[in-house]
C-alpha cells in the first residue's frame, strides 16, 4: 500500500528583545550562569510578572508576515509541570486565547509553490538550562534563559514530506531573521523545532496515529529525522502493526528516533488562565504602528529582484538569503547601475571570500561603494577582468579602495595603441614560423601571439585591444 506522510511542525523562536518577557533582566545569550536572574526569574515567593510590550510587537510582526488573523484580545495561561529548570513549577504561555491564528506561508517546491497553513502563533517564556556534571552525580541549573521571550509557531498538518518540512522551516527561519526578531541560531537554541508525524494510506482523509519528534537541532537533522520516522512508521504499518502515540527523541549520532515517553506518561499540563496577568488588548493604533515597521519580506524581494534587475531566480534566491546581503546587493546596484555585474561580483568573489572564513556579509571588509568603483574601473577599461580579481582579493584582505591598490601595484592596463602596435610588430618579426602557420590557416597560433603580447606587458595590456591589433597585424593589414 502507498502511504502518505502527514506532518505538522511546532517552532519555538527566541525573540531578540533587550529584556525578558516578564521582568527587566537582560535576555542576552552567553552571560555567566545566573547573572541574568532576578527574583522573578528565580520564581521566588511573592514576585509577579509584568509583560514586556516589545514581545507583543515582535510576535505581531511575525503574525503579520505570515498572514495571520490577529485576535484583538489574548491572554496568558499557566502550563504546569515540575522540572528543575522551571523555577515556578509552571511556564507562562498562551493556551485558549492565542493572539494570532489562521495564517499561512508559501514554500517553493520543485519549481511549484505550496501554501502551508499556520494554526497559531503565541507568546511564552523560555525555561532555564540544566548542566549535568559528568564527573559528579550533580546537576546545576542556569536560570539566565528563564523568561527569555519565545514565540511558538504551530503549523497545520499540511506538510507531506521531509523535504517539504525543511523548505517550510527555512522559510520561517528566513522570515524571522528578516524581521530582525530572532537571530535564528539553531545550535544555541534560538530556533527550535518539534514535529508531529503520522502516515495514512494515500488518497484517504483520516489521520493516522502520530508520533511527536524532539531534539532536532538543525535543518538537516529535521529532514533526516523525518525521513527516518516516515520509514519507521511505514515499516510498522506494512508489518501489520500499529504506530504508538508517543514522544520520540532524534538521536543524531545513531541516525534513529527512539521512544521517550508513551501516551500514558504524557503530562497533564493543567492549563488555566494566569491570574497574575491581565488580558492583552491589541488595538488598531498599536497594530498599525507595528505594521508600519514591517520590512519587505524575502519572497517579495526575490520576485522584485528577478523583475527589476533581470537576474535569474536562482541568483535572486542567493542574494535575498539574508536581509543584510540583499541590502548590500541593492546598494551596489544603486551605486554601480549594473545589476547583473553586481550580482556576479557578490555571488562570486564576495560570497566566496566570506564563505572561506565562515563570515556573514556584515563582516565584509569591502564596502558596496568600493565594489562599485571596481566595477566602474573594469567598465572604463582601466583594468582587465583578470586584474580585477587580483584587486578584489586585495580589497578583501586590506579594505583599501580599488584605485589605491591599482596604483600601488602598478596594475593600470596599457591602452596606448601606438606602443602596443610597436610591441606587436616586434613580436611578429621575431616569430616568422608562427606567422606563417597562422597565415596558412592554423588559427590556434593566435593564442600564442596573445600570450607573447601579455608576457611582454606583464599582463597589463588591455586584452581587447591586443586582440584587435593582433588580428589586424597578423593578417598583414597596415
Amino acid at each position, binding site marked *: 500500500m502507498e502511504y502518505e506522510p502527514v506532518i505538522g511542525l511546532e517552532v519555538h523562536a527566541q525573540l531578540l528583545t533587550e529584556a525578558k518577557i516578564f521582568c527587566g533582566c537582560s535576555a542576552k545569550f552567553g552571560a555567566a550562569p545566573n547573572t541574568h536572574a532576578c527574583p522573578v526569574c528565580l520564581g521566588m515567593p511573592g514576585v*509577579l510578572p509584568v509583560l514586556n510590550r516589545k514581545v507583543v510587537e515582535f510576535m505581531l510582526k511575525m503574525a503579520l508576515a505570515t498572514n495571520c488573523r490577529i485576535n484583538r484580545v489574548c491572554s496568558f495561561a499557566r502550563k504546569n509541570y515540575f522540572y528543575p529548570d522551571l523555577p515556578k513549577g509552571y511556564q507562562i504561555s498562551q493556551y485558549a486565547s492565542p493572539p494570532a491564528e489562521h495564517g499561512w506561508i508559501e514554500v517553493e517546491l520543485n519549481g511549484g509553490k505550496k501554501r502551508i497553513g499556520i494554526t497559531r502563533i503565541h507568546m511564552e517564556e523560555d525555561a532555564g538550562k540544566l548542566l549535568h556534571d559528568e564527573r559528579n552525580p550533580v546537576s546545576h541549573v542556569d536560570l539566565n534563559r528563564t523568561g527569555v521571550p519565545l514565540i511558538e509557531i504551530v503549523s497545520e498538518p499540511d506538510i507531506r514530506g521531509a523535504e517539504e518540512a525543511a523548505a517550510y522551516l527555512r522559510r520561517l527561519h528566513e522570515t524571522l531573521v528578516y524581521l530582525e526578531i530572532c537571530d535564528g541560531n539553531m545550535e544555541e537554541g534560538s530556533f527550535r523545532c518539534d514535529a508531529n508525524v503520522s502516515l495514512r494510506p494515500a488518497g484517504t482523509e483520516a489521520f493516522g496515529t502520530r508520533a511527536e519528534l524532539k531534539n532536532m537541532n538543525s535543518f538537516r537533522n529535521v529532514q533526516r529525522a523525518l525521513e527516518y520516522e516516515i520509514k519507521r512508521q511505514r515499516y510498522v504499518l506494512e508489518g501489520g502493526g500499529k504506530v504508538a502515540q508517543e514522544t520520540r527523541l532524534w538521536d543524531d549520532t545513531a541516525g534513529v528516533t527512539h521512544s521517550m515517553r508513551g501516551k500514558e506518561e504524557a503530562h497533564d499540563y493543567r492549563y488555566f488562565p494566569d491570574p497574575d496577568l491581565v488580558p492583552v488588548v491589541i488595538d488598531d493604533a498599536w497594530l498599525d504602528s507595528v505594521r508600519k515597521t514591517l520590512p519587505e519580506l524575502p519572497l517579495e524581494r526575490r520576485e522584485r529582484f528577478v523583475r527589476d534587475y533581470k537576474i535569474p531566480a536562482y541568483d535572486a534566491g542567493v542574494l535575498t538569503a539574508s536581509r543584510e546581503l540583499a541590502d548590500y546587493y541593492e546598494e551596489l546596484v544603486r551605486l554601480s547601475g549594473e545589476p547583473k555585474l553586481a550580482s556576479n561580483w557578490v555571488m562570486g568573489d564576495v560570497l566566496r571570500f566570506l564563505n572561506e572564513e565562515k563570515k556573514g556579509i556584515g563582516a565584509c571588509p569591502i564596502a558596496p561603494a568600493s565594489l562599485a568603483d571596481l566595477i566602474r574601473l573594469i567598465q572604463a577599461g582601466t583594468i582587465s577582468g583578470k586584474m580585477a580579481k587580483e584587486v578584489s582579493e586585495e580589497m578583501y584582505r586590506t579594505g583599501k579602495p580599488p584605485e589605491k591598490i591599482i596604483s600601488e601595484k602598478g596594475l593600470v592596463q596599457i591602452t596606448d595603441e601606438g606602443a602596443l602596435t610597436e610591441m606587436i610588430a616586434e613580436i611578429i618579426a621575431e616569430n616568422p614560423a608562427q606567422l606563417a602557420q597562422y597565415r596558412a590557416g592554423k588559427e590556434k597560433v593566435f593564442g600564442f601571439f596573445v600570450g607573447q603580447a601579455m608576457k611582454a606587458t606583464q599582463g597589463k595590456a588591455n586584452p581587447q585591444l591586443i586582440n584587435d591589433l593582433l588580428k589586424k597585424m597578423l593578417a598583414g593589414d597596415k
Partner: protein
Amino acid sequence: MELYELTIHELSDRLRAGEITSAEIVSSVFGRIDAVEKDVRAYITLMRETALAEAAEAGEKIRKGEGGPLAGIPVALKDIFCTKGVRTTCGSRILENFIPPYDATVVEKLRSAGAVFTGKTNMDEFAMGSSTENSFFGATRNPWDIERIPGGSSGGSAAAVTAGECIAAFGSDTGGSIRQPASLCGVVGMKPTYGRVSRYGLIAFASSLDQIGPFTKDVEDCAIVMNVIAGYDPRESTSVPQEVPDYRSFLGRDIKGWRVGIPKEYFIDGIDPEVEAAIRKAIRVVEGAGAKSVEISLPHTDYCVAVYYIVAPAEASSNLARYDGVKYGFRAGEARDLLEMYKKTRSAGFGAEVKRRIMIGTYALSSGYYDAYYRKASQVRGLIKRDFDEAFKNCDVILTPTSPTPAFRLGERTDDPLQMYLSDIFTISANLAGIPGISVPCGYTTGGLPIGVQFLAGHFQEGRLLQAASAYEKHARIDKRRPSL
C-alpha cells in the same frame, strides 16, 4: 493607660506634641510582648533590634518635622509579606529558612511612611485556614480566651493588635482571612478592593482572590494606614492605576439617607443566635444614624463556598508548585532521584491542609475535569459578581455578619475541614466579587467573646465603606473592653 493600648492617631498626636518618643512606644509594646506572648503566641519572628533602631530613626525625623504618617508607630506584619533580610515562612516548614532578598511593595510603603516593624506574625500555613491552627509554628491563641482560636488565617496579626503586642498589623484576605479574625478578636479589619493594594511580595495563595489589608483598633486608624498602603504598583499587573482618595476625609461624615442592604441569604440556619442578635442590633444602630435598611438578595450566595473551594485550591496548586526543594527553602535529605526529592520534600514540607488543597486544586484543573470544576466555578463566580453589581444599584453598602460564630475552641474543628470552611461563609463572596469589605466590632457574647459586623461596598468604594464603618462605630458606642491576659 499604657502606650501599647493607644491607637495610631492618639500616639501620633502625642509624638508630634513631643509628649512621648517612638522609643518609648516601642519599649512599651515589647514590654507587653514579653508579658503576654507566651500565652498568645502571635509572632513567628520578632524584630526587636531593628525595631529599636527604626524607632530611633523615626524619633529623629519627627523632631525635624519629617516623619511620615506612621512615623514611630510599631506595626506587625503577617509572615506572608516578604521582608528583605528577615526570615519569611508563610507559616510553613517548606519556607522555614527562607530569607527574601526584597521587600514587598506594602513593606516598602510602610517603611517610607515611618512605621517600625515589631515582627512577623503567625498564620495558617500559606494562609489556608480559619483558625491559625494550621501553622507549622503552632497555634496562636485568642487573647479574649486563650483556649480559643483567634480566627485565621491572619490570626497572629489580629491577636497581636488585640493583645497590645503592636499598634496595628497587616494581613492578607483570600476568603476572609482579615475580616474573620478581626471579628473574632474584636478589632477593625479591612479587605480592600482587588487591585487596590499591590500584591507584589505577598506570598501567593490564590492570586485572583488575595488582597492585603490592615488590622487596627478603630476605623480612623484603618483610614490612616489605607492612605499609606493603597495605590498602583507598576510591578503588579493586576493593581489598578486609579487615584487614591484621602480616606480620612470620609471619617465622621454622616450616613443619613443611605440605603443599607441586608442580604436575606445571609441569615441562615447555623448562625449563632448571639451573633444574629448582635447583627440585628447593628442594623438598628445604622437606622438610628439616619440610614434606611433595605432587604436585598444575593441569589448565588449558596454557591460561594463551593466556588471558592475550586478556584482557590486550583490557583494554589499552581502557586505552590515552586516549593520543590530545588532553589530555596526546605529540601528533604537523601533522595535517589529527582522525583523522590520532590515527593519527600513536598510531603515533609507541607502540612495536611495545604496538601489537601493542592490535591483538590490539581484535580479541579486536570484534563477531563477542568470543564466540570474550574470552568464551571469561574462561570458561577461571574454570577456572584453580578449579584453584587445588581445589589449595589439598590443600596450604598451591604451589612452582614462577619462570621457565623464567635471564636471557637482550639482543636474543635481541626478534624472537620468542612465545618472549618464554613467559618468564611459570609466573607468569601467579597473575594470572589473583588469588592472591599470591613469588619467592625459590634458587641460581645454573654461569655465575653467579641462579635463583628461586616460592611461591603462596590469596587473602589473603600471611602464609602469607611464612612459607614465610622458612622456605625460612633453611634454603636460599643464599650471598650480589654482582654484580661
